[in-house]
């Protein structure tokens, strides 16, 4: 049993989507995680709750609102039309935006925890040695929070690969544009092509297992090395 060209196409599209989403999320979520880890502001509670919403909401709810927002009459839709990008639903980039919202907590929370675990002291030490805030971020925070960034990347990537409901709402099933693996499996099953569904599903199970195995092995090693602070 081998993969058809169409199936291979969906795998590549899925990997492209997950990589794009992970990279964009790392850039976008890091300042947010930094702020959440260090702020004393009253807004911390509400913002944390909003970041965590995708964990509890059904993907259909998120997808529904995003569909409206990105549609021709929605706020995002108006904006993208105004700058000449057209509307985003049923395009690859619409899927990227939706996936970013959907996977946001999986990237923000590990980074936030890692930054909280570093504490104030290394930052103060860096400042007394003449490191400004940006220098300090790259020379102290980033290396010390590396495990958190690794966990965030792995979880963000894997979670994007595993999404289904939100893709169906925002992306539909357009070959090499929005038809990712999970949607392709759904289509195979609808068409009673169980053999093809088996192969793709098997690929997904093995992939997910390997990702989680990497994550947990990595976390155990981190504990063994003892990247703790204080003493």
């Amino acid at each position: 049993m081998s993969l058809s060209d169409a199936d291979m196409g969906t795998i590549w599209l899925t990997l492209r989507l997950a990589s794009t989403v992970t990279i964009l999320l790392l850039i976008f979520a890091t300042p947010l995680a930094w702020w959440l880890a260090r702020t004393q502001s009253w807004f911390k509670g509400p913002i944390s709750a909003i970041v965590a919403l995708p964990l509890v909401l059904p993907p259909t709810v998120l997808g529904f609102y995003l569909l409206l927002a990105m549609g021709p009459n929605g706020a995002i839709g108006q904006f993208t039309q105004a700058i000449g990008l057209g509307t985003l639903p049923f395009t690859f980039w619409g899927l990227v935006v939706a996936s970013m919202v959907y996977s946001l907590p999986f990237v923000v929370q590990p980074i936030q925890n890692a930054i909280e675990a570093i504490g104030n002291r290394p930052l103060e030490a860096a400042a007394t040695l003449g490191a400004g805030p940006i220098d300090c971020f790259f020379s102290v925070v980033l290396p010390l929070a590396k495990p958190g960034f690794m966990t965030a990347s792995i979880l963000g990537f894997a979670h994007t690969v595993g999404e289904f409901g939100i893709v169906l709402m925002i992306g539909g099933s357009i070959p090499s544009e929005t038809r990712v693996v999970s949607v392709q499996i759904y289509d195979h099953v609808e068409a009673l092509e169980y053999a093809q569904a088996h192969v793709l599903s098997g690929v997904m199970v093995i992939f997910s297992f390997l990702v989680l195995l990497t994550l947990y092995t990595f976390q155990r090693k981190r504990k063994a090395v003892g990247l703790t602070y204080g003493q």
Partner: protein
Amino acid sequence: MANKIKTLDTSIESARGIKARFQFSVKQFATETFTFDIDLTIPGQGVTALFGESGSGKTSLLRCIAGLEKNISGCLSVNGELWQDASVFVPTHKRSLGYVFQEASLFEHLTAMGNLRYAIKRNNQAANSQLLEQVISVMGIESILSQFPQQLSGGEKQRVAIARALLSQPRLLLMDEPLASLDNARKYEILPYLERLRSSFNIPILYVSHAVDEIVRLADHAVILRQGKVIAQGGITELFSRADLPLGVSNELGAILDCKVLERDKQWHLMRVAFNGGELWLPNVENKHNTTQRIRVLASDVSLTLSPHSDSSILNALSGEIVDIINDQNPAMVLVRLKVGKSYLLARLTQKSLQKLALAVGQIIWIQIKTAAILR
């Protein structure tokens, strides 16, 4: 403009030293408020100890000077450079200071050498390989440079942290109880390095501690804090000869004398030293680099006689004047403050002896000090 370091007018600039004034209040419990109100001038050289019980505000003062406490109103100038006032707040990374925390606080992702390089890279002065070598040798860390912090002992980490602070070539070195997190053995392992640091580098040091023995060994000046206020400040020998300050429990009270070694007696393992007011015999301490020796004479090791005794086992007898008689915490005892030449000593006697000898302020008297009891 607010962040720019500006220089004060010349009249103040010429006055070297650290002028600090900080005020703040914190609600500690529902009813209690801790008020911190400090106004002091610290010499721009030597080691100044900030001494006080825990909760007296020592660390807060040090953090204010480092700029680590934001939102605290105050005024601070260091050797003529304005670091803080109503309109200026120079951020910590632009202040030329070194800070040694209670815990070493090394960067765990860098080796000991990596930690030193971190400081060198960020200091504005030209790279100075001679300084690096000197710092490494004074702190005795040659053999551990390639190790990561988690492989080092507490004492080694703290030595690396001190070296790191020195390599940023600060104009002011702040040390916040650098020995407090170490056990006694480690503490005595590091103290000699701190003494070498004091004599090898000409940097003013502010040294926070609540341990009398550290201060006695290291400090030239002291500021004594209590509940957020300065209750006394001055030269270390002068402060420690006062009986009215909370410098440890009364049976630990003692005066400090800075002595010069005059001769060493090989046969009896003694040395003769001179202080500002007389000479003493002490157990010999081999110390090739230093001909000066700071000693501490505990008040309980000093006794008084009306005439010189030659039939006593005591080697050290001095003549002095009684300048003050103060009641001790213990109702059976009194503290007598004595002036010997230009130095002061304290003696702790019983009320009964005081009566028997009929001692009074202004009286000239003989002072006996046990050689065995003199601490360095």
